């Protein structure tokens, strides 16, 4: 079977980390059981803000999942040898991200026991149906690719030929998962904040910045904790990818701002007003959104200046900024900003509750656990091979 034996032996530090994650997961699970018993009323969601933190995390993480294509495509299609050591880390990261996505959708369901109704009554006109298929398919593709290539590596043979079409298929599939996720929102007539054809391209640009930024940070952490070294070239190229995609992302945001504010259509402007200035004195997201903007601007200064981009410390700092900025933008602002004001113009209130935040942290901890275990397996296999 899969090389699970690698994950159950480790240092004291490894087990302390696993234990900490398990504690967070246990806390989230307890709160989820409470939610299961009482209903979603224990969250901060309401009649007017019907989606919140859960669906926002889902949306953000679909982006992280899709971003694996930023390593997979150059490596397999353009033969960028520099990505040889980190391609599998990108694939494993996307597996963890899809697992989190599915969990976030699941905990958001009012009737989780009926979730398979989506498959029992397949509905092609529902974007949610396609999104579920896209995510499940992407999980399967990445799991197959990672497993097969890692096993081949361990046996010191070339991966079997049939995996190449699968790898090729996974590339457009990665684009599709985030496009379809954007379609969930951008096709709704009464939600002007999302009703823009630029939403899917914006999603992709921000995903291709935040995902590789996270991958750089994870790789640097792994490099510090283990003997694994991705090589300077891989990090440099990833840094370049983050730079360009972040520039494109900020460009897209500015496009949106121009259309909304030059057209002066009130329903379109109100959402931006709510996010960046507040409406009727209610401004919970204003500091967050400006922080996101400031971090985006600062990160671009660091990324565009070659001196800072080439230095590992400043690159890591810039990546942290990119990731935080885009997490705020998508993981907080995107969903709540679409619901406030309501289609009737009311300024609805939403603040996540303690149970809601705990469940959210629990799922993030599941993601970190999956990444930790999969990375450990991959790196141990590498070390084993190197020792031979």
């Amino acid at each position, binding site marked *: 079977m899969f090389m699970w034996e690698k994950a159950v032996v480790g240092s004291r530090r490894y087990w302390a980390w696993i234990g900490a994650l398990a504690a967070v997961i246990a806390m989230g699970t307890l709160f989820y059981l409470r939610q299961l018993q*009482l*209903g*979603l*009323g224990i969250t901060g*969601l*309401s*009649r*007017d803000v*019907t*989606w919140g933190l859960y669906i926002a995390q889902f949306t953000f993480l679909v982006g992280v999942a899709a971003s694996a294509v930023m390593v997979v495509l150059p490596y397999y299609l353009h033969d960028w040898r520099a990505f040889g050591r980190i391609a599998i880390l990108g694939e494993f990261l996307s597996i963890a991200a899809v697992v989190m996505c599915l969990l976030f*959708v699941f905990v*958001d*369901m*009012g*009737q*989780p026991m*009926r*979730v398979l*109704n*989506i498959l*029992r*009554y397949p*509905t092609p*006109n*529902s*974007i*949610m*149906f396609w999104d*579920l298929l896209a995510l499940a398919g992407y999980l399967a593709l990445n799991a197959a690719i990672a497993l097969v290539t890692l096993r081949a590596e361990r046996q010191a043979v070339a991966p079997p030929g049939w995996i190449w079409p699968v790898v090729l298929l996974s590339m457009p599939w990665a684009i599709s998962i985030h496009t379809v996720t954007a379609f*969930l*929102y951008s*096709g*709704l*007539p*009464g*939600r002007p904040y999302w009703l823009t054809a630029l939403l899917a391209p914006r999603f992709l640009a921000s995903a291709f910045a935040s995902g590789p930024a996270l991958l750089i940070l994870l790789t640097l952490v792994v490099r510090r904790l283990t003997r694994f070294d991705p090589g300077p070239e891989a990090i440099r190229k990833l840094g370049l990818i983050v730079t360009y995609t972040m520039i494109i992302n900020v460009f897209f945001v500015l496009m949106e701002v121009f259309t909304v504010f030059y057209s002066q259509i*009130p*329903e379109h402007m109100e959402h931006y007003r709510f996010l960046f200035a507040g409406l009727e004195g209610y401004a919970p997201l204003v500091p967050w959104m400006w922080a996101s903007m400031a971090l985006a601007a600062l990160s671009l200064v660091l990324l565009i200046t070659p001196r800072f981009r080439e230095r590992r410390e400043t690159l890591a700092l810039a990546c942290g900024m990119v990731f935080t900025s885009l997490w705020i933008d998508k993981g907080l602002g995107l969903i709540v900003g*679409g*619901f406030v004001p*309501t*289609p*009737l*113009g*009311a300024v609805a*209130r939403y603040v996540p509750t303690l149970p809601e935040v705990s469940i959210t942290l629990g799922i993030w901890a599941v993601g970190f656990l999956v990444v930790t275990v999969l990375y450990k397996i991959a790196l141990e296999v590498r070390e084993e091979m190197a020792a031979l």
Partner: protein
Amino acid sequence: MSMDRRTFLGAAGVSALIVVGRASVQPLAGADRRGPAGETCPLTRWAMVIDLRRCLRDRGCTDCFAACHRAHNVPEFPDRAHEVKWIWREPFERAFPAQGSRYTEAVFRGTPVPVLCNHCDNPPCVRVCPTQATWKREDGIVMMDWHRCIGCRYCAAACPYGSRSFNWLDPRPHIAALTPDFPTRAAGVVEKCNFCEERLAEGLAPACVEACPEKALIFGNLEDPTSEVRELLRTHHTLRRKPELGTGPALHYIV
């Protein structure tokens, strides 16, 4: 398969009720399923005209809301965030955003307007539902299956009128007086106005229409050229909510 006498009689009774119910609704619906050229066309398109001139004679009146919510076991949650409502009122400027100028708004601002599901011709809620738990009937009523709904609330995000409510908690303890003829809901499903399809099936007008002391709510078949709703649409200028979205609301307001 065996069937005892009791089950058989029960089934026979229900079948008879359905047949009688269908027959009795025919006069309301108009007779023929076929159009003049023999092509099949929907013989019924239920719609409502809300005459605000009559409605506003008594601004404090909530009879239609009470009748509807009682008939359908709509719960009353203490927390406004968890509110479930099928028919309620909104200030004019919320029901019809961007309709008035600064000067007309001074007249209408704050005027209570009854709102409910618009039973759209082209309902976005139906388009997005991943399980077909909500669908549009041939007669235009947008329906809900509370046993199939997975509670994803995509329909609530899609509705441009805020017509859908979600049961954030168990609604049953919050139903003031239980009406046994109508089902209650579980926590975790979406609900909304059903145009009283259960009453239409018995040939009755919707509960809100019946309850209105001013006869401000007029219900009828748009496909029937002689119906009162058609007459009102012919003789009055009416407003629909957000017609520019292409949803085709079946509710028309006389201002």
